[in-house]
């Protein structure tokens, strides 16, 4: 149990009786745009115009079973990894451009509980600081097993 919590090996073994989710039915995807990766998206894309934007760490949608239903629905999306992605200063510029040029309504940053994921929030704050307009920022922290640990306005 040593080393970086972001890359430490862990298994989440679940007994059958612990699986309580509803397995019936199918849900449509709530994604309404392409691309999503932060290096690929353009702040000028029409789907960002005045949108509520979700900036999710890459691992979040895999951890959360109901990510589409509870968080993606109705929002524009962009994803990034603060630990592995390169040229992150471009991310700061893109966030500032989303605020000033696309006039986004709000920004919700969803990160995993591991410490290195906090880097994504720092990037978002830098982008907001750089922008001339001000917008509300919400932060959602997700556990490794997909629970919402906290949801706060920053």
């Amino acid at each position: 149990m040593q080393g970086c919590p972001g890359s430490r090996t862990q298994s989440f073994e679940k007994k059958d009786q612990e699986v309580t989710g509803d397995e019936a039915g199918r849900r449509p995807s709530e994604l309404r745009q392409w691309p999503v990766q932060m290096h690929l998206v353009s702040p000028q894309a029409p789907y960002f115009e005045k949108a509520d934007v979700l900036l999710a760490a890459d691992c979040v949608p895999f951890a959360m079973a109901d990510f589409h239903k509870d968080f993606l629905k109705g929002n524009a999306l962009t994803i990034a990894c603060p630990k592995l992605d390169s040229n992150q200063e471009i991310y700061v510029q893109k966030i500032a451009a989303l605020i000033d040029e696309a006039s986004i309504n709000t920004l919700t940053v969803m990160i995993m509980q591991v410490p290195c994921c906090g880097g994504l929030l720092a990037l978002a704050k830098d982008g907001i600081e750089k922008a001339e307009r001000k917008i509300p920022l919400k932060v959602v922290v997700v556990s490794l097993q997909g629970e919402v640990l906290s949801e706060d306005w920053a």
Partner: protein
Amino acid sequence: MQDFLNMSIKEVIEKHPGVGSLLEEYDIGCVPCTVATCLLKDIVTIHNLPKKDEAILMYSIEKEIYPDRDVKLKEVVEEEKKEELGYSPPMQQLVDEHVHIKQMIAYIANVLELVAQDEKIDKDLILDVVRFIREYADKYHHAKEEDILFDYTDKSLEIINVILEDHVTARGHIKAVVDAVETGNKEKIVDHLTAYQSLLTEHIRKEDEILFPWIDRGLTTRQVGEIYQKFAQANQELGENLPERNLDFLESLNSKFQQQHQGGN
């Protein structure tokens, strides 16, 4: 019981004073409320008690009203406590503005002391206080609630009417202060400033502790963003100078009364 649920809390407490004490046990302060026209059913919802406490409170109220009735305590499955979000950014802005209004409310006590001890009324000081209240508390702050925030609520709810009525009553007190300054009526100045002080203290408490958290619980992220932008637009239309000059005035009162306090010692 349905009749009582749809009755104003003032009437309920008048008929059954014990209900007031029961509400106080849960920090629901309807007894000292000057208006108290909220409906019993809304009061319980608005205060967002844990489900179990709400069931016990409703049981106790029904027992208080109908002591001979065989009232059953509603069974409640204990819910996992959901972490309450802090104030949303626009609501935080209103709460921050309250801090300055509360500072002014505190200085009104010093102003009242001066009015009582000086033979001549310091008209300029009192009219400057009035200007702060009209510009900052009313035009800058209350207008955002009335013209923007309350559009995101059910305006027919009694709690909103109570808040709006407070605004109207406060304006009435301030107009009466101005009239009293013109006629040199010290007693009326003291009466209406004191009434304003007490009304706004309770009003701000109601908003910070009950109304704003309740409104926040009902807002979507999209609505929070909209309200935030509308507040920014409203502030911009009034100009940066309005809050600046009023906060400078608060600072000047702070120095004035600190000096007086030191001079008195």
